[in-house]
């Protein structure tokens, strides 16, 4: 009942000044904290979050570009390697051809040389035989003639040099009659190529 008595003084739409001031102070505190601490912190977090998301996207894009570049480079390198391999193959083939050519030329040269040396040897041994025969033929002929005549003509023949002269004449005759036919002492290289 006391309450009812007190209520007569109260008008709920006419607040006392003290309450208004208290309300102002309370709200001012909330405003201060909000402006000073809360809003900047949240805004910072929002910015950081946006940066993180955008940065993540950017990083992913950069990574993709990098991967693409690497793929391009790899492909280019592969193509380069292929052409290089082809070049090496061609070069090797050419070189092989060249080596074969060289070897063939060398072999031909070798065979020609061997041939030449054989002929030379042949010629020199022939000359040797001829020289040997020349000496023996002289003594044989003189011996034979001496036996036919009955006395030794060896001293005379040696003295006069008849046999040698005869043989020289014989040589001269063959050389004049067939040029180089019998006398193969001179090798003429036939250059086939």
């Amino acid at each position, binding site marked *: 009942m006391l309450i*009812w008595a007190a209520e007569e003084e109260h008008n*709920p739409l006419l607040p006392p000044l003290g309450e*208004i001031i208290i*309300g102002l102070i309370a*709200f001012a*505190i*909330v*405003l201060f904290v909000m*402006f000073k601490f809360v809003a900047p912190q*949240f805004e910072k977090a929002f910015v950081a979050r946006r940066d993180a998301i955008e940065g993540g996207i950017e990083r992913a894009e950069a990574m993709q570009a990098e991967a693409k570049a690497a793929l391009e480079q790899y492909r280019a390198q592969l193509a380069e390697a292929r052409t290089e391999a082809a070049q090496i193959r061609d070069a090797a083939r050419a070189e092989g051809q060249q080596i074969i050519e060289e070897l063939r030329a060398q072999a031909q040269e070798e065979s020609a040389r061997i041939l030449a040396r054989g002929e030379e040897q042949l010629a020199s041994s022939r000359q040797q035989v001829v020289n040997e025969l020349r000496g023996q033929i002289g003594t044989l002929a003189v011996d034979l003639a001496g036996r036919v005549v009955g006395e030794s003509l060896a001293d005379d023949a040696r003295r006069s040099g008849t046999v040698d002269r005869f043989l020289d004449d014989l040589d001269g005759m063959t050389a004049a009659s067939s040029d180089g036919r019998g006398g193969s002492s001179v090798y003429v290289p036939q250059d086939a190529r």
Partner: protein
Amino acid sequence: MTSSALALGDVLAANGEGFEAPGLGEFYPEVIANFSVLGVDFEITRITLILWIATLALVAFLYLASRNAKIVPGKLQFVGETGYSLVRDGIARDVVGPRGLPFAPFLASLFFFILANNLMAIIPLAQISPMSKFAFPLVLAAICWVLYIYIGIREQGAGRYFKDILFLPGVPKPMYILVTPIEILQNFVVRPFTLAVRLFANMFAGHMLLVVFSLGAVYLFQVGNYSVVFGPVSALMAIVMTFFELLVIFLQAYVFTVLMGTYLNGSIEAEH
């Protein structure tokens, strides 16, 4: 001792006198301390204490939620950020407009301050919102009133701002006789008054409803006749109304902030 407890005592003491409905005394609890500064009387009641508890709890919550705000928020930061983003994106950016973001902290303060105080309406032992005292909504409405007029003058210039209010563009000249007084009343009286009264009346009525149903249940249980049957109905209604009150608590905090957003929008952008 709370005023509700006093009323409860009255109810329990009412022997055959019938149900004493709780009245305005609910909002004028006994004065705990009384002092005067520079001729202004301050009466500290439990509602004043509830205001300070709500304010300090809010400040502590906001500080802890925003301290070391991280990219990946913790639970507390998430709750704080959700509330802040609701105001920042939903009101400051979408209602006030593209230039509204600087007002986000103010609007968020408004929202959180009203919400924290309103929530005291259903928190056990407190169970009354300081916003059901007209002084506190009035303070907020007055601040809003000063702010949106100041912003209007700052953004549009005093001449343009008041001219647009006095002579609404695009209205036929004879209509000014009717429109101009309405616009003046609307912008300088009705807006702040409705802002304050809407919040105050909602919390006031909400509290009265809860008290009436709660005390009614007690009365019906102890009155001693067949009325006992209706006791549980009253108790159930008190519980249902508590949940309804929860809805009103959020809604009124949001509505107050959104309306302030539209007023700021009108001040920032040359309207019509």
